[in-house]
């Protein structure tokens, strides 16, 4: 088993009375992609932002390489952490400063960290990063508005890579892009992951892309992780009724199956104090009461083909 790179324990992020993230725990292993899916308001983006310390968390602990992310830190260790963990944002229009050139945007990180001070070296690193994300070195002098949406997202990715991080949180990185451009960006992320041994937390509402890119998937609903497991297990043998409902709503480019589609509505059974996370199969976790888990598991097993 790969090394644990990130551990989230009982994370709570409340905004006033809103429990955006309500007591979630999970781990991310080195080199994997963990997909975090959910609908708007599920708390998936807040989770990402809390992990990278864009928010001060309400309660719980986030450990990165066995060090507390939110603990008291000196400047030196905060800088080291910032190098290790980077973020790619959803909106490639809002997340790039319109007054900076692509080169300046990409270089901002290492300028702050005092890296690549030699002018020639700095330029060379910018060129390498641009090329790594499928742009070319001439693009360094252009401003954000001179790029298409897909190209802007590539700049956002180049910026995230500039400090050579090991862990990247990608918050809906493709939602704002056209289908064919989404595929380009997803392929790029996969390629970079292989080349640089990156670990991804991939946050999205599009279950089909998440299924494609992720090794494991966590499904969030109302601030809780309701199900977490291997991507194929979540997709082929979901246990939690919310996951089943979510999967049943994805339209496929297949008119025959669409004509027969039956959506499974999700009727929340309410949250109770006796609901906990159960490991129903090895590595497959579901949130519910003992009784609920028994019932759901029996339902799933009726349709089960493969065994663990």
């Amino acid at each position, binding site marked *: 088993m790969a090394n644990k790179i990130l551990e989230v324990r009982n994370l709570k992020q409340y905004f006033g009375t809103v429990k955006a993230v309500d007591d979630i725990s999970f781990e991310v292993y080195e080199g994997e992609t963990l997909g975090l899916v959910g*609908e*708007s308001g599920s708390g998936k983006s807040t989770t990402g932002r809390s992990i990278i310390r864009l928010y001060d968390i309400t309660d719980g602990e986030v450990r990165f390489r066995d060090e507390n992310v939110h603990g008291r830190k000196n400047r030196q260790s905060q800088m080291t952490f910032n190098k290790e963990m980077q973020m790619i944002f959803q909106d490639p229009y809002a997340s790039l400063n319109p007054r900076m050139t692509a080169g300046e945007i990409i270089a901002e990180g290492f300028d702050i960290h005092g890296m690549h001070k030699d002018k020639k070296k700095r330029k060379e690193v910018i060129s390498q990063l641009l090329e790594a994300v499928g742009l070319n070195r001439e693009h360094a002098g252009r401003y954000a508005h001179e790029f*298409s*949406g*897909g*190209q802007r997202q590539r700049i956002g990715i180049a910026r995230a890579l500039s400090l050579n991080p090991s862990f990247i949180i990608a918050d809906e990185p493709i939602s704002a892009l*056209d*289908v*064919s*451009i*989404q*595929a*380009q960006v*997803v*392929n790029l992320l*996969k*390629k970079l992951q292989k080349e640089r041994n990156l670990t991804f937390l991939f946050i999205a*509402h*599009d*279950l*089909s*892309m998440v*299924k*494609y*890119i992720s090794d494991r998937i966590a499904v969030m609903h109302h601030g809780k992780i309701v199900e977490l497991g291997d*991507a194929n297990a979540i*997709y082929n043998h979901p246990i939690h009724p919310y996951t089943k*409902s*979510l999967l*049943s*709503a*994805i*339209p*496929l*480019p*297949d*008119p*025959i*199956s*669409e004509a027969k*589609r039956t*959506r499974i509505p*999700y009727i929340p059974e309410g949250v109770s104090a006796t609901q906990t996370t159960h490991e129903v199969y090895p590595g497959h976790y579901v949130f519910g009461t003992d009784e609920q888990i028994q019932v759901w598991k029996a339902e799933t097993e009726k349709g089960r083909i493969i065994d663990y």
Partner: protein
Amino acid sequence: MDEIILEVKNLKINFKTNAGTVQAVRGVNFTIAKGKTLAIVGESGSGKSVTSNALMKLIPQPPGIYAEGEILFDGRDLVKLTEKEMTKIRGNEMAMIFQDPMTALNPTMKVGKQIMEVILKHKKNFSKEGAKKRAIELLDEVGIPYPEKRFSQYPHEFSGGMRQRVVIAIALAANPKLLIADEPTTALDVTIQAQIIELMKEIQRNSNTSIIFITHDLGVVANVADYVAVMYAGQIVEYGTANEIFYNPRHPYTWGLLGSMPDLDNKSDELLRTIPGSPPDLINPPKGDAFAARNEFAMAIDYEKDSPMFEVTPTHFAKTWLLHPDAPNVPIPEEVQKRIDGYLQKGEQ
């Protein structure tokens, strides 16, 4: 034979900008039959939204110009109608559902009043009381619980999905023959999207409304469409029944779109098929076929001459030189074909 309610002939829409004239829609032809759904699919800049806005005469002039073509609706050419004549059709005989329900609604006006407004404007036989009753009925029809109470609420008191239902109620208020829905579910969560689509289909079954559904999501297209028009660079590049487009696509751009979608049943170690590059500049559209530069199957003629529409079946057309009798036989790319075979096999079970 289906009764045709709308026919678009060689429609061309330009926009004058400082950089030059953008040819946003470059000769589009299609018809829509009563009670049927035509999905127009394409990426940003393909001209799909401009086309739909053009049908409602919502293109601001200037900078927009109806450069050429006809929009025949119920025997009239909408291009030639004055704005005054158009206001009698818009919201009445044809209505539109927009992408973002928050900006489509007036935030300072109770939703019930926004529905009543349409009824009172277009249905002269309604009294104020009657219009109110009808508005409450409409809220009920689009699946909004407690319609009497909801009638007096403001848009911000509704969730995204409920707001879109209100927008649909407004669109339905005058019993239009044609509904134009421009990405009506794009801003919504996937479970809410499914509900809104079910609602639109139910409306269609009950009142035999024709629907033009504009979207970039091929899954949604497969769910809603009787006919599909694939747009690229301001033109329709492939047109056919939903089954023809999804199970026997003929245009390389359609292959690219289908290949870009992840296949949920397959291993994820393969890369997705992508369309390299980006769409052409429509100020100076390229010579020849607009897709040539991104088309791995492009031939010399693609760079010289724009391809005509070739007939595949009497209902299926594609604008690619690959269908010319003298062209080499290029089959559907393997990974796309494999997926289609998978779907068809599953369909037979």
